[in-house]
């Protein structure tokens, strides 16, 4: 078997006495779309933060294509090829759509500049359904369009691993269908993705495998249907009204 795109090995993160991520391990294969699910507060975002470098792990190791990246600064990790979106959408409000996406194409894993970066930004805007709106200030955009901007910005660096933190949350049913097919397209083109999501339909439709977390611990991993039917997962979700 070829080397995993990303390996999380006994990753740990504590906030004072709280263990938000408790010795979690899993691999993400090349070209795989891995779902990361679990009840609210189970440590999913924190885990993504450890991978992207937003937070330093308290223990364990994270390997990108076999290279250790755990504990590196976020900008180093970005340059090595990890891109992400944020649970609470983060756009660059004073810049227009094109500049927002260019920000992802200039400093990261792929470093372009000038006309090339601009062309790439336009292509990606088109791709996420914002063609022709290059010069709209993002602060004037709707929530879903801002999420599209974030996705295009993450894709602009041509990341080796893409982290999506509830990218589908807050979309209405029609938008959700559009969003799902967009991610499906990324999967088909062979992107390696970790997707944190509460929308179970999306997980079932899109993911090859999933990892389930509860209170910081990984409680299941495997094919989506198998993982979801494990007793411990059922128990974790039954105690949680968001399931």
């Amino acid at each position, binding site marked *: 078997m070829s080397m995993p795109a990303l390996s999380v090995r006994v990753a740990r993160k504590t906030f004072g006495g709280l263990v938000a991520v408790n010795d979690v391990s899993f691999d993400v294969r090349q070209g795989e779309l891995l779902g990361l699910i679990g009840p609210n507060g189970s440590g999913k975002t924190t885990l993504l933060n450890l991978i992207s470098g937003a937070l330093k792990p308290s223990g364990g190791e994270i390997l990108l294509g076999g290279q250790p990246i755990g504990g590196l600064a976020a900008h180093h990790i970005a340059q090595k090829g990890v891109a992400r979106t944020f649970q609470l959408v*983060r756009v660059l409000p004073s810049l227009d759509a094109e500049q927002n996406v260019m920000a992802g194409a200039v400093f990261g894993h792929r470093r372009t500049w000038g006309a090339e970066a601009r062309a790439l930004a336009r292509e990606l805007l088109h791709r996420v359904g914002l063609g022709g709106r290059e010069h709209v200030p993002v602060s004037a955009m709707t929530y879903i369009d801002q999420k599209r901007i974030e996705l295009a910005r993450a894709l602009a660096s041509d990341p080796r691993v893409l982290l999506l933190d509830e990218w589908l949350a807050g979309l209405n049913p029609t938008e959700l269908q559009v969003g799902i097919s967009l991610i499906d397209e990324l999967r088909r083109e062979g992107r390696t993705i970790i997707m944190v999501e509460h929308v179970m339909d999306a997980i079932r439709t899109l993911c090859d495998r999933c990892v389930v977390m509860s209170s910081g611990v990984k409680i299941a991993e495997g094919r989506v249907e198998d993982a979801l039917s494990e007793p411990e997962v059922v128990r974790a979700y039954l105690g949680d009204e968001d399931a």
Partner: protein
Amino acid sequence: MSPLPFNLTQEELRAGAVGAALVIVAALLPVFDQAYYLALGVNIMLYAALCTAWTLFSGPTHYISLASAAFFGLGTYSVGLGIDHLPFPLLVLIGAGCGAVLAGIVGVATLRLSGVYFVIFTLGLAELVRQLVSWGQSKITTRMGLYVFTDFTEKHIFWMLLALTVLVFITGWLINRSRLGFAMQVIGNDETVARHVGIDTARAKIILFMISGAFIGIAGAICAPRYAYIQPNSAFNPTISFLVVIMALLGGTKRLWGPLVGVIPFTILMDFVTAKFPNHTSIVMGIAFLAIVYFIPNGVTGLIEQARTKLRSRMGAPAVKPGEVQP
């Protein structure tokens, strides 16, 4: 339109033409007057250079530096110590180097901290450098000052400061169309996003601070011949740091030309106060500082811009992109 293309835009051409015309007019000042107005002109030009250099860094980062006097004094002392041994232009470069190095050290030490620590650190540092120089000088030379004799007169200093100001503007414009400028825009919007798209935010800020410090060092070097007799208390005078902040904030730091709007009236005001009420300059500075921060935190240019946006939105025209920083 957008700040990133490599070709000049119409707007940039127009700004360049207006700028060139203003520079020519300013350069003619010494032809008309060699006394009072030239002396005032030198002061205005000095603070124009200092405030734009300061804004190069503080505009996009919003960090308030009170270290200007330290960079300035290092420049002045480079000339003071070296004038008998090395050619003046080389000493100016050495002054720039000293400013940049000191800024780099300050940056590495503090720019990872929040803004408040930065202000205090820079103020303390400038004071420390002044004390060190005083101490060193008294130990080594047993004199408190240095004599600088050159052939430069006020008008030469005026022209050099004018050239420096032009250089700061050109640098600012080049930075704005570079990766560094784009990085600063992203950082100004959201530092977390900046880091996650691969920007080394600390490094970008340090580079910018070093550029700014180098220019302030050059200004100090250019002014050295003006003093004739250089003392630590005049070369590292903390008033310089405070005046730079006051004038830059008065004008507004969102655009590189913003501070000029503050420099001209405030230098004239200070000139008047120093002449008429020499014991009250500190009070005037203090009051001005409070008034600016309290009433016009975005400066005069900020006020004008706000009014314009309001007018435009009332007339239903498309809003300008507020984030575009232009020199």
